[in-house]
């Protein structure tokens, strides 16, 4: 199977969490004998080739970060400005990934993505959902690999099934909401470790203002 994968993140490829997720997913795909080509929408010079690939292939995955509860405006522009109408049937699947970790955070984006394929002349191939990806960009290699490995497993699964409609794909999202004890534990570890990690990154980036500054 040959799969067209479109990275819908506006973030430059080098820093894009979606890109790292796609790389891991593609490894899984390829280990099962499938092939893929990847387009990155943050680079406008790839749009024309991405439009052409979108219109002419029959297995397409759009991988995207959740942006303010739905698809990023850049991806919406890419889809709204598709130069032609599809004539050839295709299966359109999605990898929707987000910063916040609970499954419920991704449901609005999922509702939109579910409605999208039919409007683009495609059939819906399912949505692979998972949060807790904000840290990929700033994580050390070991931690990063731990976050990314499950996507390689799903790449293998996609190579076999051709979609994300399996129970395994549905389970990928993890917990829908966090029970109170887990929330308390998360906040505790955030105060001890997470908060410090953000402050360290800010210092490395040359930040000289408090993170809760009010410039306006």
């Amino acid at each position: 199977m040959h799969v067209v994968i479109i990275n819908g993140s506006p973030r430059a490829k080098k820093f894009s969490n979606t890109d790292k997720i796609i790389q891991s997913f593609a490894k899984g795909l390829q280990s099962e004998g499938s092939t893929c080509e990847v387009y990155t929408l943050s680079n406008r010079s790839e749009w024309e080739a991405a439009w052409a690939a979108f219109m002419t292939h029959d297995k397409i995955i759009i991988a995207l970060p959740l942006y303010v509860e739905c698809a990023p405006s850049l991806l919406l522009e890419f889809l709204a400005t598709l130069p032609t109408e599809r004539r050839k049937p295709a299966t359109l699947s999605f990898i929707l990934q987000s910063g916040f970790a609970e499954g419920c955070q991704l449901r609005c984006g999922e509702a939109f993505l579910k409605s999208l394929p039919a409007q683009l002349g495609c059939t819906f191939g399912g949505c692979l959902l998972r949060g807790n990806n904000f840290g990929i960009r700033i994580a050390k290699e070991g931690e990063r690999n731990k976050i990314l490995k499950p996507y390689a497993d799903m790449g293998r699964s996609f190579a076999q099934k051709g979609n994300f409609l399996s129970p395994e794909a549905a389970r990928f999202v993890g917990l829908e909401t966090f029970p109170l004890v887990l929330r308390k534990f998360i906040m505790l570890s955030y105060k001890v470790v997470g908060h410090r990690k953000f402050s360290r990154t800010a210092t490395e980036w040359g930040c000289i203002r408090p993170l809760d500054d009010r410039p306006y």
Partner: protein
Amino acid sequence: MKTIILNTADNIRPAEALQAQIAAKGEDAELIDTTTMDIRHCMGCNHCFLKTPGVCAIKDDYKQILKKLAHSDSLWLVSGTRFGFLDYKGKRVMDRILPMLNMDLCFRDGEMRHTLRYGTLNVGVVYSGEGNQQLLDFWCYRSSANLGGHSLGAYSVNKIKEVKVCM
């Protein structure tokens, strides 16, 4: 109560009607027509969280919007639709709203959120075209919760008279 109305739709009339409706109730409603402004897509650099807190790295006309949002209680977005959802111009002004939040995390109403850089912000949408009402209501509800506010609801331009003011 200060309300900002951001118009991203080609036709400004619905936004003007909304402004008049809010003003008639004695509320302060400022209309900003973004269609003549230079506003680019958020590029996810995270500088507004971690490098220049609260300041967007993109130097365009959004800065003047942000300055006003920082001191507003409610935001109405008047937008066209595509694929049943906000069109990319409407979504674009919402994706740029991140500097209203801090990097810092907390749980609010049982869900993980960013803490608020300024006050709370209620969000409502007036849309033209074939909007998916359920989806837009869901989106308003979730987006306003992210900003610590409540949803003002999603209304088709044909139902603008039903918009409730003073919420």
